[in-house]
């Protein structure tokens, strides 16, 4: 589904050069649920940003469905992100001044040809999928952490992406809520066939995925 070959990412300042990723080769297959593990600062999130086309590699190629993306311009990359990729963040990144349903609609705002009622219908469906139909008119601050993360999942899946990228989605949650979030992710993976790549620190959660990619000091060790 998505393939990273010989990826390097180097951050340069006038006096310093930091290698965040070095010679990473990762291929995530359609329908896979993979976890990315590694210590803090090892380059996990940078790798996830590469998978999500949020950052450009210094060297190497990224291909989605076999199509190389390095020649894509901002507009095309934005379209790919909009249609193919959904993001879940550790700290949810919900917009506090928007109601739950409006937060979920955000990805659809950047998709052409959808009417307001279609957007609303899809958002409500996504909220239904995460069990939050009773909270659509609430503001994020009126929800618990687990509920906020479920809103974030609804936002990530509302556009029916084929790839879901989750950056420590349970990092800010207690174990009960973490389980709840994981079960939603498993359901999406198994029932909808959504491909998922998840960064985690939690070995226990990693064991629940199909395989684990391990990163250490910017290098792939497994």
């Amino acid at each position, binding site marked *: 589904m998505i393939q990273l070959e010989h990826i390097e990412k180097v951050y340069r300042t006038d006096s310093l050069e930091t290698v965040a990723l070095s010679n990473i080769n990762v291929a995530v297959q359609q329908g896979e649920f993979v976890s990315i593990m590694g210590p803090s600062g090892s380059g996990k*999130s*940078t790798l996830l*940003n590469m998978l*999500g086309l*949020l*950052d450009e590699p210094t060297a190497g190629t990224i291909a989605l469905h076999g199509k190389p993306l390095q020649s894509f311009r*901002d*507009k095309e990359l*934005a*379209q790919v*992100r*909009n*249609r193919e990729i959904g*993001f879940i*963040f550790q700290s949810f*990144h919900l*917009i506090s*001044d*928007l*109601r739950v349903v*409006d937060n979920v*609609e*955000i*990805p*659809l*705002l*950047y*998709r052409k040809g*959808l009417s*307001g009622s279609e*957007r609303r219908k899809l958002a409500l469906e996504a909220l239904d999928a995460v069990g939050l139909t009773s909270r659509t008119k609430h503001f994020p601050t009126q929800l618990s952490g687990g509920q906020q993360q479920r809103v974030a999942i609804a*936002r990530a899946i509302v*556009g029916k992406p084929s790839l879901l990228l989750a950056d420590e989605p349970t990092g800010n949650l207690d174990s009960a809520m973490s389980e709840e979030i994981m079960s939603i992710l498993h359901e999406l993976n198994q029932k909808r066939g959504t491909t998922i790549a998840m960064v985690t620190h939690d070995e226990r959660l990693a064991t629940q995925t199909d395989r684990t990619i391990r990163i250490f000091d910017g290098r792939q060790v497994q």
Partner: protein
Amino acid sequence: MIATTAHLFKLVWNRKRSNALIMLELFIAFLALYGVTALSLFFWSNYNKPLGFSYANVWQVEIDRKEQGDKPSAEQTERLRRLIRSAQTLSEVENVTASFTVPFSNSGKGGNYTINGKQLRMDINEVTDSFKDVMNLQLTNGRWFNPSDDGQNWIPVIINERLCAAGFGSESPLGKPLYKPEPGEKERRVVGVITDFRKNGELPRPSLFMAERINMNDTASFHVPHNLMLKLRSGTTAAFEETLVKTLQATVKDWSYRITPLQESHDSTLKNVMIPFVLLGLVVGFLLLMVALGLVGIVWQSVTRRTREIGVRRAFGATYGDVHFFVLGELLIITTFALIAGVVLLLQLPLVGFLDLVDASVYAASMVLAMSIMYGITALCGLYPSMLASRIQPSEALRYE
């Protein structure tokens, strides 16, 4: 575009508390700007209308009779006649007229009269027969005053086209009484129509105007004019002033005279209006500059504060252009809310008689102009911060603390 605009409206509305101060600032700036644009358009529109007379080479002789009262005695009338005659003997003088009020002076005469059932406010002047030629008035209907008007039991009057239209509509006013006289008062009968006589100059709103004939033989019904106006031959220099005063003093010794070229009065009147106007413009300009600087700061801060939100939008498919539009659009929508409040307030102005002061076209056009300027300023203020926001890499924006 429509979807994101609606979304932005929702966002701004939900953030109305945090946006309240900036909206208030924009609201006040809009009202101040409206004041200046309305005044500018008011002046501009008036300036482009014809004065109806020419003040070139016309001098005003203000007469101080050192006597109380306006009603003439036979002696005063005779003195006035002598003055006019002696001025006319001077080779530099083309023509002389006497009038109660003169252009560009603060004094004037006017009143409210009922004409064909309509209550109209008009300016009035009392003039002698040569006033038309001295002031180069343009007659468009009927005739000017002449000696045949002596001995009538009514007073002939000339009106301007504006008064003609307001009082008589499409009917001809000629030969008709202008208004019903008070008991014991003579009837004012219209004998002619002139284009205009905008005594107060180019900037004030043109008014309804009527000129009454001074019949120097009928000392009972006219006020002794305080002014002579002299049309001088082209090329007459300021040195002529001395000759003129000497001639007038030799004619009537115990009156005194002050000479002012109408060009000077015109320039001074214009300056008196323009100086406060320019000062007001500077104050409002400074206010707008402060608002603009404040806006840049607020938008910049807002962009910084919401960098992660921008990152989220980028992650979910927003392009550079979308982020640009998002930041700029939000500012323009905040402006729209402030302008809506301002426009609602301005729409009340006609209820307090504002349209009696300015034309409806000026009222509406200045609103549109002030709104356009406000949108222009806010767009300009949001341009750089929105450009910065659109350049943030999504991955950096999401990491921003």
